[in-house]
């Protein structure tokens, strides 16, 4: 039997480079004659620009060029709409996308008004002080509800209202369901803004070589191919004249797939103007304004139930903050809308959202990408319903689960990939039971909690469910080659930001070809090496690119078997591939190394049969018909210090189902990292904007990221329900850890303070905010 690689906890191929400081990140690119860029950014969130004076800045020694909007001529264009609105019947949509440099009006703090190119970054930043911009301040649009009032200032003057989009989706008949219900519960829920805060800020190096007429761009992007195509079109170059490299990236989490960032188009343009390489590396403060953010939503939601806890319907009307521009269309609020339904049978659903322009940084997907809002609303409604109906909160969930035999399950609305929201497969109850067992739910509620509460402790337990639409199309591709050395190379278009693609893709190829994983060399994120692809987003790398690698590797396997069969004069079924050799089964003396076969498949002289392709190589593409639905359960036990209101997570359990697992070690890491970000989002991280749209905590000193002291050990387990939609049976897992944490915190806190009837309806929380909520609840008792 040959060694199995798929499904093994194999350590990562990329790690030695990263561990020794020898991996190339964008800011590590150093080119001869390179210039450095800094941006003058607006402090005001909403203001008309009267004049910009760059004359004295230009005088400063070391400054090479300064550009403002009018210097860009025809190159000045609003960015493209990345995701057009999906084909939903009731839809209003106003396209407004970001601009490279602000021309007339600033629409959020941190928008760039001028670009400085200098001999060093230090000089470029010095020159910022020499730029004088005269602004006419305008009232800012900050609050979502105020934004929709008739007398609200307008973010985009040419629109009648601050509406970016309005979408309604319907399943069944909510009104009817509500009229038949024994109980209807209505509540308002808030979710506030946070930021992805990847440890590496964004950065771009662009280098135009006039002699070869070729542009090379290193970019911290999750979508190098789309960046190449766009830059070529904008600059009037052939795609073959542009190479975009996404080298190692220090965390992506979504905002690095936004395109085009103004800096991306400006750097590429500037190197063409100047004929010298240019570099811009975002600093942390800029990252708080110039990199996209996520998540203000306000939901007015209702659930209709029968007395026994059966859900009859849900209605949800919400506002979504798109920020100043909406290049990403409706992806985030549609995710909220679709993910709300969760693993439950909801026969009737009415969901309507209004996406609102505000004078705040742009919102695009960040890990979870709106899914956590939907989960929060649904799980909270179920918690409140359970309380009102005196049903255990686990039991009410169990009663409403979609059952295994009901898959594929059609939710009759349209998902972010434009396909109907159909769950491919799932098996929810076993995951729930396993989570209850691991957290010790029954025993905790019966014995431990009452006992500890009697001793004066505040301690709560929570269990929530979620589903995650993953692995959406359109497609990715991969080329697998056996080289003359006998080693295997795999090239794919998608970039990697720490997800372990160098290893998981290698495992997929190794499984087919019978070579050690360390002999599979992966290349990702270089557009000169692979031409086609969409990018790393929506937990799709393993699913979409993984299956492309699988298909290409299977073809190469067939080629090896055919060639070896001919040479050894045996039937292909009698051969096996072991450790980089093809041999007659059980007869190692017949082994032919892959290298030899590769060389023979690529002869330098002589004739080959007509129709023969050279080499042991294959390129394949994979595009799923729709996304694969992963699911899971999180559970935790939480204590609250009655004096300080600091919380401590005592125990955290995750049981998830993302189909077949390529590498459990990498998967665990993804889950743990996701939970850590979820914890940050639930209890530590909040961007505070004042009424003028100024961000008050734009530094890591004031914006609290969870540290090693805040994130607990996570006990995890998994259930495997393969996806029928792809040959590997995998589903995505990149976002699952982060999605349900807000809902989990809320439930645990309510449980800890159930004596005073605490009802947490907002995220993020903090010790301060929790204290206020507890005081309010106490007053109401």
């Amino acid at each position, binding site marked *: 039997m040959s060694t199995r690689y798929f499904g093994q906890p194999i350590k990562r191929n990329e*790690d030695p480079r990263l*561990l020794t400081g020898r991996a190339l990140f964008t800011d590590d690119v150093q080119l001869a004659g390179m210039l450095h860029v800094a941006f003058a950014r607006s402090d005001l969130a909403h203001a008309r620009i009267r004049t910009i004076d760059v004359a004295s800045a230009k005088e400063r020694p070391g400054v090479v060029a300064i550009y403002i909007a009018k210097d860009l001529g025809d190159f000045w264009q609003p960015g493209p709409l990345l995701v057009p609105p999906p084909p939903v019947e009731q839809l209003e949509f106003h396209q407004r996308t970001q601009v490279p440099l602000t021309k007339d009006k600033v629409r959020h703090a941190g928008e760039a008004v001028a670009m400085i190119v200098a001999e060093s970054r230090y000089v470029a930043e010095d020159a910022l002080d020499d730029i004088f911009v005269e602004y006419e301040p305008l009232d800012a649009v900050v609050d979502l509800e105020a934004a929709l009032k008739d007398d609200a200032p307008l973010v985009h003057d040419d629109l009648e209202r601050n509406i970016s989009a309005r979408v309604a989706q319907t399943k069944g008949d909510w009104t009817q369901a509500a009229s038949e219900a024994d109980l209807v519960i209505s509540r308002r829920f808030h979710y506030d803004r946070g930021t992805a805060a990847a*440890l590496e800020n964004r950065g771009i190096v662009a280098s135009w070589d006039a002699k070869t007429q070729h542009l090379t761009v290193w970019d911290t992007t999750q979508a190098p191919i789309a960046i190449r195509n766009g830059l070529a079109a904008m600059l009037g170059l052939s795609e073959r004249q542009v190479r975009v490299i996404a080298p*190692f990236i220090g965390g992506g989490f979504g905002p690095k797939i936004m395109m085009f960032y103004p800096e991306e188009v400006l750097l590429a343009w500037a190197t063409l103007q100047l004929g010298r390489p240019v570099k811009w590396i975002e600093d942390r403060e800029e990252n708080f304004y110039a990199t996209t953010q996520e998540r203000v939503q306000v939901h007015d939601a209702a659930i209709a139930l029968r007395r026994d806890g059966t859900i009859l319907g849900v209605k949800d009307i919400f506002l979504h903050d798109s920020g100043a521009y909406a290049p990403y269309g409706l992806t985030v609020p549609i995710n909220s809308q679709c993910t709300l339904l969760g693993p439950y049978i909801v026969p009737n659903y009415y969901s309507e959202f209004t996406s609102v322009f505000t004078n705040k940084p742009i919102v695009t997907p960040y890990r979870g990408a709106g899914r956590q809002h939907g989960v929060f609303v649904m799980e909270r409604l179920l918690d409140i319903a359970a309380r009102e109906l005196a049903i255990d909160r686990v039991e009410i969930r169990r009663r409403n689960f979609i059952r295994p035999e009901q898959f594929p399950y059609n939710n009759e609305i349209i998902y972010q990939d434009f396909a109907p929201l159909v769950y491919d497969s799932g098996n929810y109850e076993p995951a729930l039971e396993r989570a209850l067992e691991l957290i010790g739910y029954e025993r905790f509620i019966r014995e431990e909690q009452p006992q500890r509460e009697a001793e004066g402790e505040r301690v709560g337990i929570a269990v929530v469910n979620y589903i995650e639409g993953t692995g959406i199309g359109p497609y990715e591709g991969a080329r697998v080659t056996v080289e003359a050395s006998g080693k295997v190379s795999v090239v794919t278009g998608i970039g990697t930001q*720490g997800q372990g693609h160098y290893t998981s893709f290698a495992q997929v190829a190794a499984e087919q070809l019978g070579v050690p994983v360390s002999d599979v060399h992966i290349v990702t994120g270089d557009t000169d090496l692979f031409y086609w692809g969409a990018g790393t987003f929506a937990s799709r790398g393993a699913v979409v690119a993984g299956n492309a690698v699988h298909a290409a590797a299977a073809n190469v396997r067939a080629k090896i078997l055919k060639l070896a069969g001919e040479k050894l004069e045996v039937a292909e079924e009698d051969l096996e591939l072991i450790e980089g050799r093809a041999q007659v089964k059980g007869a190692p003396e017949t082994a032919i190394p892959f290298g030899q076969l590769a060389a023979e498949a690529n002869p330098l002289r002589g004739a080959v049969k007509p129709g023969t392709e050279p080499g042991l190589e294959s390129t394949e593409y994979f595009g799923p018909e729709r996304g694969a639905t992963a699911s899971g359960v999180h559970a935790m036990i939480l204590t609250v210090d009655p004096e300080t209101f600091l919380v401590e997570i005592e125990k955290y359990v995750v049981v998830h189902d993302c189909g077949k697992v390529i590498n459990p070690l990498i998967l665990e*890491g993804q889950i743990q*990292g996701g939970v850590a970000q979820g914890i940050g989002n639930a209890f530590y991280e909040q961007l505070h904007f004042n009424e003028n749209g100024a961000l008050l905590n734009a530094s*890591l000193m004031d914006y609290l990221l969870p540290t090693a002291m805040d994130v607990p050990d996570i006990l995890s387990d998994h259930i495997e329900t393969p996806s029928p939609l792809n040959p590997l049976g995998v589903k995505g897992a990149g976002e699952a850890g982060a999605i349900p944490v807000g809902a989990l915190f809320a439930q645990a806190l309510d449980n800890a303070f159930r004596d005073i009837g605490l009802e947490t309806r907002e995220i993020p929380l903090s010790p301060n905010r929790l204290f206020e909520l507890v005081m309010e609840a106490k007053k109401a008792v």
Partner: protein
Amino acid sequence: MQLNHTITLIVNGQQYMRSVEPRLLLSDFLRHQLGLTGTHVGCEHGVCGACTVVLDNEAVRSCLLFAVQANGREVATVEGLSSGLHPEQLHPLQIGFWEAHGLQCGYCTPGILMTLVPFLRENPNPTATEIRDLLSGNICRCTGYQKIVEAVQSGAKLIQEGSS
């Protein structure tokens, strides 16, 4: 224009003499003047720990120091921890991180390793709580820290085995 200073220092055992602006950060000096880009920058205000290097046996944040402050002193960066990429060339702590999957994007990793090197010399056998306490000044946005803690423990064990 500010006058440049000439500084002499040892980095990873090698002596360098360079002329630098007084305001040049040590992190920028290491990365862009010496080309030692393994030291990363995540915040430039002393919070994230990505830029940590060892200065005369003490872990320091190179974004909070000027290059001139390293004059006459000895700096160790992540590049000096191993002699190359091959498994047998790696420092035991690096092996620990590799085996326990203690890194994802790897951007925080050099700073974390350089925080740990002097610490483990003083505390060869730390508990999980001590490790978490020490690393509370290093932000990792990817891993959730759990596997980093495991990595440190297995690395510490490997260091002890190696020196016994």
